[in-house]
């Protein structure tokens, strides 16, 4: 047998920071793509349905374009998702060793959804030409179901890290019994899962709408752009009020079950009633500086009464307090702020629609929609920062510290640097590809030079290799 490496403690502490940074970065990258995987199918299917039902060629064209974009984002999402499953072992092997038997259950179920998603996504994306209209539409419906199911499984695993239950440990700390249902349906599942699924629909809705808002600001006001704005924007705007309700419920549950996280994100120093809600500001041990204080509101939000007692950081042992208090607090506020802004946007659209059956006419409306996509992604990241950084120093709340979970392997800073470079390329590539796709669409939907990997053009005298020519949009059938 080969000798084991002795592990210096200092290396381990540095590893922890590097591993956390790498995990945060790769997860932050992937989560945007997974939102697209969860919510883009429904958006595409709605456009497809409208197109088939009403013979609307613009809607069919949108569904086609979006599914081509989804082919790219799903491919990138599939590999960045794979990186995350590798990172479970590469960065957090001791977490997997101890708790894989318990929380792995959620991922086992997710495997099925991911499989079905990959299969039906391929059938849908590549079935546009040869499958008949409605058969093709129905081949896409499983993507919608698997998106929801996949999100449920993955977020249930994360909820479990926040509210672990459904396992028995022996004296050595080894999992000796598991109750899979309790793992899957833990106290945090009920709010984390809908919160994430709604976030996915908001991100997709506002992100796609923002693309068409930019186009309309550039003067492209055809039916395609109007529909391309309206379909996703409607989805985003419907999801927003529901999201604010779910988020509010989630915050109350966090106050109940994860008081340290709640105290940190709300900057509550001392336990007690009549807690002030601080909007913005810098958290310090003697109060919040430079914030807008709203007396009693925090207590009221937690328990619908100004007298509600809220746990402060003073009750949390020093070594169990989440780090970066101000960062957490501002992340939380930014998320809520963006959500509220998007709700106001929805109210504006609803009012304009009720008045004139049209979107607001001012270019400011389009400008706001144009930034709503980026804003919703920002809100998404903020939410995950609150969930994940707010749980620190724990990886499994109350059972395992992140420092116990991290690998002893060397070179994590190096791998983090490599990952940064790699993902910068990946992100740039994906954006460039999307832009070149959109340019092609604008230039009249002309195809690439042939369908072939990398030949300049189809050599003369040979039969064309790709299916040549571009058939008219909508395939003339309804």
């Amino acid at each position, binding site marked *: 047998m080969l000798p084991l490496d002795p592990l210096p403690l200092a290396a381990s502490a540095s590893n922890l920071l590097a591993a956390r940074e790498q995990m945060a970065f790769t997860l932050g990258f992937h989560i945007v793509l997974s939102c697209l995987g969860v919510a883009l199918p429904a958006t595409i299917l709605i456009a497809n349905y409208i197109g088939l039902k009403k013979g609307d060629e613009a809607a069919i064209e949108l569904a086609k374009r979006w599914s081509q974009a989804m082919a790219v984002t799903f491919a990138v999402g599939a590999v960045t998702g794979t990186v995350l499953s590798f990172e479970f072992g590469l960065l957090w092997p001791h977490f997997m060793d101890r708790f894989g038997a318990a929380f792995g259950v959620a991922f086992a179920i997710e495997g099925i959804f991911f499989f079905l998603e990959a299969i039906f996504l391929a*059938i849908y994306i590549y079935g546009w030409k040869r499958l008949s209209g409605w058969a093709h539409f129905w081949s896409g419906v499983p993507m919608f179901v698997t998106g929801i199911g996949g999100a449920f499984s993955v977020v249930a695993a994360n909820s479990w890290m926040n509210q672990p239950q459904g396992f028995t440990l022996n004296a050595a700390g080894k999992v000796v019994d598991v109750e899979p249902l309790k793992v899957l349906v833990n106290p945090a599942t009920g709010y984390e899962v809908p919160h994430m699924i709604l976030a996915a629909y908001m991100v997709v809705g506002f992100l796609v709408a923002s693309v068409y808002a930019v186009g309309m600001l550039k003067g492209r006001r055809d039916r395609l752009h109007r529909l391309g704005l309206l379909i996703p924007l409607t989805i985003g705007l419907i999801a927003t009020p529901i999201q604010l309700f779910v988020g509010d419920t989630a915050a109350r549950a966090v106050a109940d079950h994860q008081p340290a996280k709640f105290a940190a994100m709300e900057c509550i120093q001392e336990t007690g009633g009549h807690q002030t809600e601080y909007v913005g500001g810098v958290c310090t041990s003697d109060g919040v500086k430079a914030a807008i204080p709203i007396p009693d509101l925090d207590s009221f939000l937690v328990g619908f009464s100004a007298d509600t007692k809220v746990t402060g950081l003073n009750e949390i042992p020093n070594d169990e307090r989440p780090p970066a208090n101000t960062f957490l607090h501002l992340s939380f506020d930014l998320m809520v702020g963006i959500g509220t802004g998007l709700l106001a946007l929805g109210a504006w659209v609803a009012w304009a629609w009720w008045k004139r059956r049209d979107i607001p006419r001012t270019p400011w409306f389009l400008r706001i929609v144009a930034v709503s996509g980026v804003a919703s992604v920002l809100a998404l990241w903020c939410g995950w920062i609150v969930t994940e950084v707010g749980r620190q120093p724990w990886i499994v709340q109350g059972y395992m510290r992140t420092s116990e979970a991290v690998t002893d392997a060397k070179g994590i800073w190096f791998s983090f640097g490599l990952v940064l470079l790699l993902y910068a390329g990946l992100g740039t590539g994906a954006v460039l590809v999307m832009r070149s796709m959109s340019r092609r669409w604008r230039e009249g939907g002309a195809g690439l030079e042939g369908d072939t990997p990398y030949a300049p053009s189809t050599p003369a005298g040979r039969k064309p290799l790709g299916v040549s020519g571009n058939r008219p949009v909508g395939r003339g059938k309804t």
Partner: protein
Amino acid sequence: MSKADAAAAILWVGATFYALFGGADFGGGVWDLVAGGPERGQRPRDLIQRSLTPVWEANHVWLIFVLVVLWTAFPPAFSAIFTTLYVPIALAALGIVLRGAGFAFRKSIVGLQGRRAMGATFAISSVITPFFMGTVIGAIAAGNVPGAGNGDAFSTWLQPLPLLIGAMFVASGAYLAAVFLVGDARRQEDAEMERYFVRRALIAAVVAGAFAVAGLFALHSEARYVFDRLTSQGLPLVVLSLLCGIALLALLLRGARRPLRPLAAGAVTAVIWGWGVAQFPYLLPTSLRIDQAAAPGPTMTIIFIVFGVAAVLVLPSLGLLYTLAQRDLLESEH
């Protein structure tokens, strides 16, 4: 058969599917790499791309399946492998990212230069990824992964056996891909491409066979436990693999039309299960047994249910996908 043994069998089923379908996808990249310049390589690349496009993501999911079953059903084994072999594993992950991105971007990017760069990324990483995956399997088979993990980061896999297994992975993927592509070329009545890939299937078969023989010698010196069992309990499977390989060679040389794919799949499957039988009852020979690494019973039950659901839902769906793809009902549109 205990619950743990059954879960190990499920792990092997997943690995088999990944080796067959994921392996063939890697092999497609290998042939893309050696197809020559833009003009000369256009036709084989086109055939490879059309065969891979609708199915590679679904095929890739088998890897996720294997990882998830490993960490859920056998957490200590997962941890031991990842704390020891993190270098080749990270390199394989790098290859996976480059490969998927290269393939997806190549289709959609405009301009010859960009496409060539993306194509080269895809093709080169199609060699890197299976090679390092092979070194991981080789290091496990060689007994270089301590059951408690934290084995040496380099000496565990920079040995003849792991490196040979890595090379064998690349060659068998190329072999599978060539055989699958012979069928695809036939279906499209492209006699030139059919001959092209028949020739390459023969070359890959010989190369993979040579690596396998060299691997046996390395196994004899580096992994006695596995070698001894492979040549006793595992012998029927080794013979079966050999017979499938020889039969396939004969058919290819005679220009026969079928059953090429089942024979190629049979040859690879027999090797994987031969390895499984040879390792039994160890997950990590000879430091971690299946029963030592096993998760509690209820977790295993979930694995069985998931596997059952996969058999009922995923396999027919995969069948549908392959059927549609084989009937040319799926194609990319630009």
